[in-house]
């Protein structure tokens, strides 16, 4: 009897091992998250013959930049505009660089350049477009005593090597205030750069400042004709055509660690995968929380605090019919711009107003739209009951609109549909702690973690913005997978 039991036991273990082998699929690389960085990394690896699987917990790709249909209207969330827009001959700048790396053509993104954007502070307005000369002229006209200083700042920006992964972080506020002596001009320069890609409250790392300065002021804005889905469609198609595997609605439950490595990946559906190398775009702390050897006391990275309220409005006419042709308006109703987690639920004293119709489009968009972004406080939104949450959304939308119509024509009577994304929504869809879209303020530039085969790409690696996110995926795939195997 005892012999038989042992035999059955041995047989049982043996067959479950066999079963385990069959269920465990192995990849050269596994990528967590099908956002811009994960997809870009996936294309690089799949193109060069690696077996790659991207797992995405949401049913749709895009991560922090995505799209959805609401009551029959196709809406975008996240991306207002693609930064880094340059004419096709500017080969060494980031956008052409990433197109080359992804083996894509400039036409694939169908980019339509902006008309003109504006920074509006009390008593001062600075316009800029995709030709840096306009911005330089606006600064010289609006701040004649700062014209020389502004040229000095430009020189400092152009001389800095922002792509050096080993550079020591320095304060952009310190650098800028040592050159620009008028705090109003300084804040007006910081405002768009912070809203479009800064994870840190009050200050900004200078390398990140340089990336954003170049991508917004020296290069510029463009919109893919069909919005963010155009970029995502191109990336997914390219990834699949290279043989990459994409699994949506596929969350990672845990990363099993042993001997300083991730040895297997347990999915929420109970399946186990293995991979030689893992790139995670889920965020640094978010990824660490998946580890079976998770130890919060060892983590030095603080959680990001900056989240946003995004109001998406469909209008019964284009804003150009109201005499408004500006593409993006960055505003502040105070001459000191405060970029921080607000005390209240939302800070409407500053914000971004984007008009998707006001790009030089190939054909007009089907509807008039306005999108507004304001700083918001995650804890306040997260703590509400369902009923209260809805009521606050509606109330803050009205407060926001009341404020922004001081900076753009009053379009409130034209609104036919409104939807509001809160920090809670961002957290639910992206898994980001605190709904912090720009992640932790301490970036992991090298992408390395304490585990030999686990690397960070995307927001928390540190190249922000759409182009930055894709370049992050590309560089981490190059550095940690293609160059090593």
């Amino acid at each position, binding site marked *: 009897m005892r012999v038989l039991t042992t035999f059955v036991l041995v047989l049982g273990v043996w067959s479950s091992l066999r079963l385990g082998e069959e269920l465990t699929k192995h990849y050269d690389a596994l990528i967590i998250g099908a956002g811009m960085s994960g997809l870009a990394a996936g294309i690089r690896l799949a193109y060069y013959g690696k077996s790659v699987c991207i797992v995405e917990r949401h049913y749709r790709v895009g991560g922090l930049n995505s799209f959805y249909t609401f009551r029959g209207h196709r809406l975008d969330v996240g991306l207002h505009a693609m930064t880094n827009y340059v004419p096709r001959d500017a*080969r060494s700048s980031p956008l052409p660089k990433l197109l080359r790396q992804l083996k894509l053509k400039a036409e694939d993104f169908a980019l339509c350049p902006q008309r003109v954007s504006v920074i509006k502070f009390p008593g001062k307005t600075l316009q800029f477009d995709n030709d840096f000369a306009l911005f330089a002229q606006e600064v010289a006209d609006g701040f004649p005593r700062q014209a020389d200083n502004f040229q000095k700042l430009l020189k400092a920006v152009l001389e800095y090597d922002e792509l050096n992964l080993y550079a020591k972080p320095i304060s952009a506020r310190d650098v800028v205030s040592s050159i620009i002596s008028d705090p109003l001009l300084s804040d007006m320069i910081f405002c768009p750069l912070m809203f479009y890609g800064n994870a840190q409250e009050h200050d900004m790392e200078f390398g990140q400042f340089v990336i954003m300065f170049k991508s917004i002021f020296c290069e510029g804005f463009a919109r893919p004709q069909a919005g963010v889905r155009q970029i995502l469609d191109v990336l997914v198609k390219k990834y699949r055509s290279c043989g990459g595997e994409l699994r949506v609605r596929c969350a990672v439950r845990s990363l099993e660690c042993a001997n300083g490595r991730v040895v297997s990946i347990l999915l929420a559906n109970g399946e186990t995968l293995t991979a030689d190398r893992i790139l995670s775009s889920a965020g640094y702390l978010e990824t660490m929380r998946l580890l079976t050897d998770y130890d919060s006391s060892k983590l030095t990275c603080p959680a990001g605090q900056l989240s946003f309220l995004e109001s998406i409005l469909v209008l019964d006419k284009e804003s150009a019919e109201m005499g408004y042709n500006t593409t993006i308006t960055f505003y502040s109703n105070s001459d000191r711009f405060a970029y921080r987690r607000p005390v209240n639920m939302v800070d409407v004293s500053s914000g971004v107003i984007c008009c998707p119709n006001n790009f030089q489009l190939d054909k007009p968009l089907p509807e008039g739209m306005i999108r507004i972004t304001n700083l918001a406080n995650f804890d306040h939104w997260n703590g509400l009951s369902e009923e209260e949450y809805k009521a606050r959304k509606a109330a803050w939308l009205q407060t926001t609109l009341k404020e922004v119509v001081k900076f753009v024509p009053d379009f409130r009577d034209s609104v036919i549909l409104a939807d509001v994304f809160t920090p809670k929504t961002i957290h639910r869809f992206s898994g980001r702690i605190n709904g912090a879209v720009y992640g932790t303020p301490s970036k992991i530039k090298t992408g390395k973690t304490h585990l030999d085969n686990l690397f960070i790409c995307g927001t928390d690696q540190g190249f922000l913005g759409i182009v930055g996110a894709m370049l992050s995926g590309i560089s981490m795939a*190059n550095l940690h997978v293609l160059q090593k195997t």
Partner: protein
Amino acid sequence: MTKEQIRDAILEIIAQIIPDEDLSNLKGDIPIREQVGLDSMDFLDIIMELRKRYGIEVPEDDYMQLATLDGCVAYLDPRMREL
């Protein structure tokens, strides 16, 4: 492959990576990156294409040996001669 064929193979790879550049005057003894607009990411793609097309593995420590066209040919000759 002969040395000449190896050189042509390299040039074809570079031409695919940076199609807008004129490669006809590329000098063999000067680093390629000093002569045409080829950044470190593009350079990596030369290595990757060698693996993809010819199955040749170039370890990271050897990348520097491929800086010039002549260097490429010298390095690849023993590895591609039999192809």
